């Protein structure tokens, strides 16, 4: 009986991986409070520690907006991001501003150009579950005619 259970668990896990089950979080409240007013919570697992360090050092000029934090939350969030960060090369930043949307992984998944009138920062425009940190393929609604991968 125990074995049947084990097989079942492994099967469900394999199925969810196959179905593109991309769920993240939950994350500390502070992270959501300070970093999810202008965009949804971005999963820290999608960029390397070096990338997050670059982002956090430039919060005063955060891709055209001032996103500066007080010293306390700044340190706490930096430590959290670096702890949760990816260790894979495909998640490394490819430019000084460390835009997540320019990493090799992101470009492979999304191409280089967002759909018309959509910003790559607006995940929930296509990933309908993004606000609940659910990026599974099931919740994906692409605009008509938009090719998901490779420009």
């Amino acid at each position: 009986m125990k074995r049947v259970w084990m097989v079942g668990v492994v099967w469900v896990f394999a199925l969810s991986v196959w179905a593109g089950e991309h769920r993240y979080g939950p994350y500390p409240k502070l992270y959501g409070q300070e970093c999810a007013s202008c965009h949804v919570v971005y999963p820290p697992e999608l960029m390397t520690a070096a990338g997050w360090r670059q982002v956090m050092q430039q919060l005063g000029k955060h891709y055209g907006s001032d996103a500066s934090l007080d010293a306390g939350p700044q340190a706490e969030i930096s430590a959290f991001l670096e702890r949760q960060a990816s260790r894979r090369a495909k998640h490394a930043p490819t430019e000084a501003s460390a835009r997540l949307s320019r990493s090799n992984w992101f470009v492979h998944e999304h191409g280089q150009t967002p759909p018309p009138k959509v910003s790559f920062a607006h995940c929930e425009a296509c990933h309908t579950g993004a606000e609940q940190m659910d990026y599974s393929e099931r919740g994906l609604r692409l605009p008509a005619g938009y090719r998901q991968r490779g420009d």
Partner: protein
Amino acid sequence: MKFLLMLLWALSTPILANTGVAVQIQARLAAEARAADATFQGFSVQRGEAFYRDRHGDWSCATCHTDHPAKGGRHAVTQKAILPLAPSANPERFTDPKKVEKWFKRNCNDVLNRPCTAREKGDFIAYILTVRP
């Protein structure tokens, strides 16, 4: 009658409590404005509204918070939904002085490319408190 009064009380309390903090913030801003300019006469709803609507560069406050701040808006860059700014439509607004300062700092830098003066901030709040849904 008693029921009506109770209802009125229940409805008005959140709004009163809410504007209470905004009024405290304004009192501090008024002291700062007076210190910066001895001729300061108090905050103005009209000046606040003009400040809210004027483009100070590429953007105005209304760019993201809409022409009618009791409505929800969208972030000009990321398009994320923004809840209404006017406390009459969103009682959470202007209830946390630290949060208010954080967003004045960020948004003034974004829209005006400089910090706002105490008078500008006080005028802005004076206007926002008059906005009805």
